């Protein structure tokens, strides 16, 4: 792919962001014109600058949320990928895990939050558990699915070369599943951030979720939007990092641009 072909999508993306911000600004200042309901992105940026540079008050929240997200996310990968593999390779395990997976996956996570709070207390444990619950299922399901749909020809190829079970796993099944796993990881970022927000609404004293919740309660619209925007930026950064990691891990695929 050469530079010229890459230019147009990049311009379109930048244009889309600028247009969105302009419309937001217009709606906030002209249509609504009430800072108690909606503020212009300019005010949000000013406030964010203040909280990041002048007072630095955003950092503790950012740090607290990042930490909860990180551990929940990592735990989800550590549990989800192997469990997905085991489910794909063993019918017994699949049938055993399936009802639980379906129940937990489809039930609204927010309903679990108070229960987890009850079990793990208001410390980091319950928050990490909520993030974990959000992240683990896309990863688990994709790891399972990725290994289930491996081309039969590849498995026969392994057989024709008399590869042993470990070589079949490490040389065929695992590399064939990686794109699926990483797609699951990418999906789990948004769900994980939702988990952070939910977790910090209940009995937290810091974190972006707490910041948003608190600002909403006290009708501090600029801070509310700074919190929401920070979540959005974290999501975009996380998504992009995983996408780059995908391209790095799977150079044999034509690079996956955008979604």
């Amino acid at each position, binding site marked *: 792919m050469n530079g010229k072909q890459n230019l147009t999508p990049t311009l379109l993306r930048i244009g889309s962001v600028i247009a969105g911000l302009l419309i937001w600004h217009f709606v906030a200042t002209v249509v609504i014109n009430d800072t108690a309901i909606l503020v212009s992105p300019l005010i949000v940026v000013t406030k964010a600058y203040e909280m990041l540079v002048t007072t630095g008050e955003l950092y503790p929240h950012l740090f607290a949320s990042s930490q909860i997200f990180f551990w929940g996310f990592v735990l989800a990968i550590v549990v989800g990928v192997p469990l997905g593999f085991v489910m794909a390779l063993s019918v017994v395990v699949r049938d055993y895990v399936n009802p639980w997976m379906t129940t937990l996956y489809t039930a609204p996570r927010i309903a679990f939050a108070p229960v987890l709070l009850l079990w793990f207390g208001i410390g980091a444990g319950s928050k990490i558990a909520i993030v974990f619950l959000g992240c683990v299922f896309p990863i688990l399901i994709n790891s399972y699915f990725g290994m289930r749909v491996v081309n039969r020809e590849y498995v026969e*190829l392994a057989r024709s070369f008399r590869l042993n079970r470990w070589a079949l796993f490490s040389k065929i099944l695992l590399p064939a599943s990686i794109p699926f796993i990483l797609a699951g990881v990418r999906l789990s970022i948004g769900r994980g951030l939702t988990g952070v927000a939910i977790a910090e609404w209940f009995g937290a004293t810091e974190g972006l979720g707490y910041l948003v919740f608190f600002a909403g309660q006290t009708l501090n619209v600029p801070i509310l939007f700074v919190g929401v925007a920070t979540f959005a930026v974290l999501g975009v950064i996380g998504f992009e990092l995983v996408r780059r990691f995908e391209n790095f891990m799977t150079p044999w695929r034509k690079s996956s641009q955008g979604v």
Partner: protein
Amino acid sequence: MAGPVLELKNLHKELPRKDSEPFQIFKNLNLSLRDGEFVSIVGPSGCGKTTMLRVINGLMPRSAGEIFIDGKSSKDLDHQLVMGFVFQGASLLPWRTSLKNVLLGLEGRVKGVAEAEQIARKYLDLVGLSGFENNYPHELSGGMQQRVNLARALAVDPRILLMDEPFAALDAQTRNFMQLELLRIWAETKKTVIFVTHMIAEAILLSDRVIVFTHRPGTIRSEFKVPLGRPRSMEMRSDPRFLELENVIWKQIEEEVNSSGGFANQ
């Protein structure tokens, strides 16, 4: 080596069915190949010729009969790599480069990474792909992919090469080139080959012997020694002996198709 390299004795394959007799795929297969022989199998589609290759290679279990390789039962040789299989489709692993694809069968069998790589490079060179070691399959044309496929099967130095319609997905021109390339490579490696194809002309051009299968359940209907010298060339396709053989084989396959209920039943 005096005895046959590959010998099939009363090989039989059927699939069990619910509420009815087992489904017979092929039966009473008796075949023997001498060292370095190139034998093609042709027959009406669905006659079990591909299944036969898979049973010989152990990708599917046999229902009855024996397979001997250099006089030893294939069951005793299962852990060894005595056969190379060239698949019909794109069976290259997309996440491996050409070199790594060829290395697949060598890893863990050849001591030392450098040595294995050296062998892989040698076979890539043999199939005419020097310089494409680091390309991924999606960067190669269909013909080049099948060259890698062939190099991969040959690299483990198998006693027998089993080829399942390897050129079926290629366009006519590439297919002709690949047929000549295969003959060149075969002459250099002196492998014993079973080549399954649905194209009679391809079978004649390549083979020492052409075996015609009956319709299902497939068994050997007839076999022909190809009355042409080597090396073969594309011009031989207009040789009267070539054309006559092609005609005879076509008539037989036509009879098989008709006696199974015609093309409408295929």
